[in-house]
C-alpha cells in the first residue's frame, strides 16, 4: 500500500513532498497551535489591567467549580451518555440512510433526496427550539391539542418531565444530523467499484449479504475515523440542543444538564473568563486522552484502521 523507502530515492524527490505539506502545516501551526497559548487563561486569575501574561497564576483553582458541585456527576454522565448514544445511533442511522440513497439509481430521485436531507443541518437550533415548542407546549402545542386527545391520552407538560427528554433530544439530534452525516458515507460508498457488487450478485448474494460483506467492510476506515473524531469531542455538547431546545427549563436538569450548559449557567453572571477557559481545557484534555486510548485499542484489534 505504501512505497518502500528506496522508491523515494534522494532528497530531490522528497523535497517536493515536503513542500506540498508545508502550507497546510504552517497554517495549522499558526492558526491552531499558537492560539493554544490562550489556554493559559485557565490557570490565571484574570486581571484586565495587567493583561493575560501578567495576571496571577493560580494553578488549578479555576477548575474546582467543575468538581465541587453536587451536579458534577450528573452533568458528566449526561454529556458522555448522550454523546455515546448520538455516536452509536447516529452512525447507524446515517449508514442506513446512505445505503438507502445509494440504491436509488434514478438521477431524479437521488437529486432531491440528498438535497432535502441536508437541509435540517442548516437550520439554527434557536429556530428548531421554537418548532419543538410549537409541538410540545401544553397550552397550544400540536401534540397536546391534537395528537394526545385523538389517542385518548391526557395532556402532558413535557417541559417539566425530565424522563421524556432523552428521547426528544435524540430525535431532534437525528433530524438535524443524519442527512449531513449520510453524505459523508455516501461519498465513500460511491467510491466502491460496482463490479464487486456484480460479482457478488452472480454468486447469489442478496442485498443484505452485499451490504454486510462488501459495503460495510469497505466503509470501515471511514466509520472508524469519524467515530474516533467524535470520541475526541465526547466531553463537548451541542449547546443549542441542550439549552435552547429544552427552553432552559430547570425541571429538566437531571436529564439535560451537560458540562457546557452548566458552565454557561454558572458563569453567565460571574463573567469569569478563567473558569470558562478551565472548563474548555478540561473537556479537551479528556477528549484527547480518550482518542489516544481508543486508538490504542483499535490498533490491537485491527492495526490498519488506527489513526496513527
Amino acid at each position: 500500500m505504501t512505497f518502500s523507502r528506496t522508491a523515494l530515492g534522494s532528497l530531490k524527490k522528497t523535497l517536493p513532498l515536503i513542500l506540498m505539506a508545508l502550507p497546510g502545516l504552517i497554517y495549522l501551526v499558526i492558526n491552531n497551535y499558537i492560539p493554544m497559548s490562550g489556554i493559559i487563561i485557565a490557570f490565571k486569575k484574570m486581571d484586565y489591567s495587567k493583561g493575560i501574561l501578567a495576571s496571577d497564576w493560580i494553578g488549578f483553582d479555576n477548575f474546582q467549580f467543575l468538581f465541587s458541585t453536587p451536579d458534577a456527576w450528573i452533568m458528566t454522565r449526561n454529556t458522555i451518555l448522550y454523546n455515546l448514544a448520538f455516536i452509536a445511533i447516529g452512525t447507524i442511522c446515517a449508514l442506513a440512510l446512505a445505503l438507502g440513497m445509494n440504491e436509488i439509481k434514478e438521477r431524479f430521485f437521488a437529486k432531491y433526496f440528498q438535497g432535502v436531507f441536508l437541509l435540517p443541518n442548516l437550520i439554527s437550533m434557536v429556530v428548531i427550539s421554537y418548532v419543538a415548542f410549537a409541538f410540545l407546549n401544553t397550552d397550544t402545542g400540536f401534540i397536546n391539542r391534537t395528537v394526545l386527545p385523538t389517542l385518548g391520552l391526557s395532556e402532558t407538560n413535557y417541559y417539566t418531565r425530565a424522563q421524556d427528554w432523552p428521547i426528544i433530544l435524540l430525535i431532534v439530534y437525528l433530524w438535524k444530523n443524519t442527512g449531513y452525516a449520510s453524505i459523508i458515507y455516501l461519498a465513500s460508498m460511491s467510491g466502491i467499484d460496482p463490479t464487486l457488487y456484480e460479482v457478488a450478485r452472480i454468486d447469489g448474494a442478496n442485498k443484505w449479504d452485499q451490504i454486510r460483506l462488501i459495503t460495510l467492510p469497505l466503509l470501515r476506515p471511514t466509520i472508524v475515523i469519524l467515530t474516533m473524531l467524535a470520541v475526541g469531542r465526547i466531553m463537548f455538547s451541542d449547546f443549542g440542543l441542550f439549552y435552547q431546545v429544552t427552553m432552559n427549563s430547570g425541571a429538566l436538569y437531571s436529564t439535560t444538564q451537560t458540562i457546557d450548559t452548566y458552565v454557561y449557567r454558572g458563569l453567565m453572571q460571574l463573567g469569569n473568563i478563567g473558569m470558562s477557559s478551565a472548563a474548555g481545557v478540561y473537556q479537551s484534555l479528556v477528549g484527547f486522552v480518550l482518542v489516544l486510548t481508543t486508538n490504542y485499542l483499535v490498533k490491537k484489534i485491527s492495526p490498519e484502521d488506527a489513526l496513527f
Partner: protein
Amino acid sequence: MNKKNTLWSLITLLVLVSMLLSSCAGAPETDQETSGTSTENNSTEASSATEEPVEIHFAFLTFNRISEDLGSVESAIDEITVPKINVKVKLHPYSIADYSQQINLSLQSGEGLDVFHTLGDLPQQVSQNKVTDITDMIDQYAPEAKAIVGDNFLKASTVNGKVYGIPAYKGVAMAPNLVYRADIMEEIGVDPDTIKSVDDLGDVFAKVKEKYPDMVPLVPNMPGELGLTLTQFGIDPLSDSYFLPKAVLMGDSLQVVNYYETEEFKKVATLARDWYNKGYILKDAATTTSAALELMSAGNAFSYIASYAGEQAYVQIAAQTGHDIRMVRLGEPYLNTGSINALTWSVASTSKNPEAALKLINLIFSDKDVINLIIYGIEGRDYVKVSDDHVQYPEGQDANTVPYTAQLSCGIVGNQFIQYAMAGTDMADLQLMLEENQNSAVSPALGFTFDNSSVSNEESAVLNVINEYLPGLNTGSVDPEVEIPNFVAKLKAAGLDKIIAAKQAQLDEWAAR
C-alpha cells in the same frame, strides 16, 4: 544529509517561529498598534489647545440597528468636544448580543476602549480590574457630573472606598406595576384605584377569567418570572441579580439571609401556586420565551407585572401593542446599590488616556448637545424637533431607516433629564422620576458591594440550583410545600451558607467603617 534530520530541523524551526509569534501576539502592549489612541499626548497634564486632540473610544449599548455612518455623527460631536476638552470621539455602538463580549475582548487586547458602561455587573468589573479608579480624578475632570448625580449615586459606584464610575443619571426609583388592559378592566367593573397591592389581584383575575375564559389574566414579564418578587418591598439583593437573588437583606436589618428560606418567598410562591391552580397563569409560564409585550399585542393576555420608573411607561407600551393599556402601582420604590449602579459609566482600566476619557464622561452628563448627538444623531437628517424638548423621526422614516439613531430606552447615556424626549412623552413624569430618585426609601446597605471572588465556585453551583428550581416556583407550576424544602437543601449542598457567611463578613466590615 540525512532526510530525517532535514524534516526534524524544519519542524523545530517552525515551532520556534510560532513561539516567537505567539509571545508577540499574546502581549497586551504591542508596538504594531494600527488602531487605538494616539500616543503623542502626555497623560499627566490637562491638554492645552495647541496639542493634538486625543482620540477616545466610546462604547455603548443600542437596541437599534447599528448605523453604517458613524463618521458624520462623530464629526458633529468633535466640533463640540475638540474645543472644549481636546477630545475626538470614536463611537462603538454594540447590540445586546455582542456588547459584553466585545468589551471583554477590547479590554484583553489593551486597546480600542476608553469609555464604556456596565450592565449591572459593576462588582465583577471591579474585582477583575476592568475599570479605573477615578477617586482622585473626579473632582478635577468631572466636577459637573459629580454635582449632577449627587452623593447617593456616587456611593453606589464606590467599592472599598474608591470610586469606579459614575452611575447613569436616570429614573432609578422603580416601582412594581400591574400593566393591564384598561378596556377589559372597565368591562369587569373594577376600579383600578382599589388595587393597592398584590393581594388585591386575585379577585381581579377571577373576574377576568369569568368574563373571558380564553384570556390569560397574568402573563410572565420574562421567561420563568411573574414579577411577584418585584412586589416585595425592602429586599436588597446585595450585588446579586434581582431575578436570581441568593443572599439578601430584608428591610432594615443588616443580617444577611438566604432569600429562599424567608417567609416572604414562601408567600410569593404559594400565591403563584394558587393562581396557577385557578388557571390565572399560563401552564408553560416557566419556560415560554414569549415576552409579555408579544402576548399583550396578540390580544389574549390581560396583564403582567413589571417595574418602571415614573408613571408614564404605559404610553409607549400602548403604542407598541396597539391596545388601551394602563398601569397601577403595586408597591413603592426601594433604592439599593444595585438599582443605582446597574448602568455605570466608567473609564476602561486599559485606557491610555484616562483623564481625557473622564472629561468625556463629564460631558455626557452635563452637555445637552453631546448627549443628543449620541442618542439621536444629526438634526434634520436623523430626527426633527417638534418642540423645545421633544423630537421624532423625520416624515416617513423610523428607527430602521434613518442613517443613524441610538434611541435607547430611558436614558442609558449619561443624563436622562437633559436629553430630548420622543414626541408624546410627558415631561412632568421626568420631574416625578427626579423627585423619586431623591426621596425614595433607601436600603441600609447603600454603597456596599460584594466581592465574590472568594466564593466563585459556590456561586456557580448555587446559580445552577436556582436556575433549576426558581422558575417553577415563581410561576406556580410546582408545589411549594414540597419543592421549597428540596430547593433549600440543594442550595445548602451547593454552598449557599458559605456565600452568606462571606457576605456577612464583608458587610460587617463595611458598616464598621
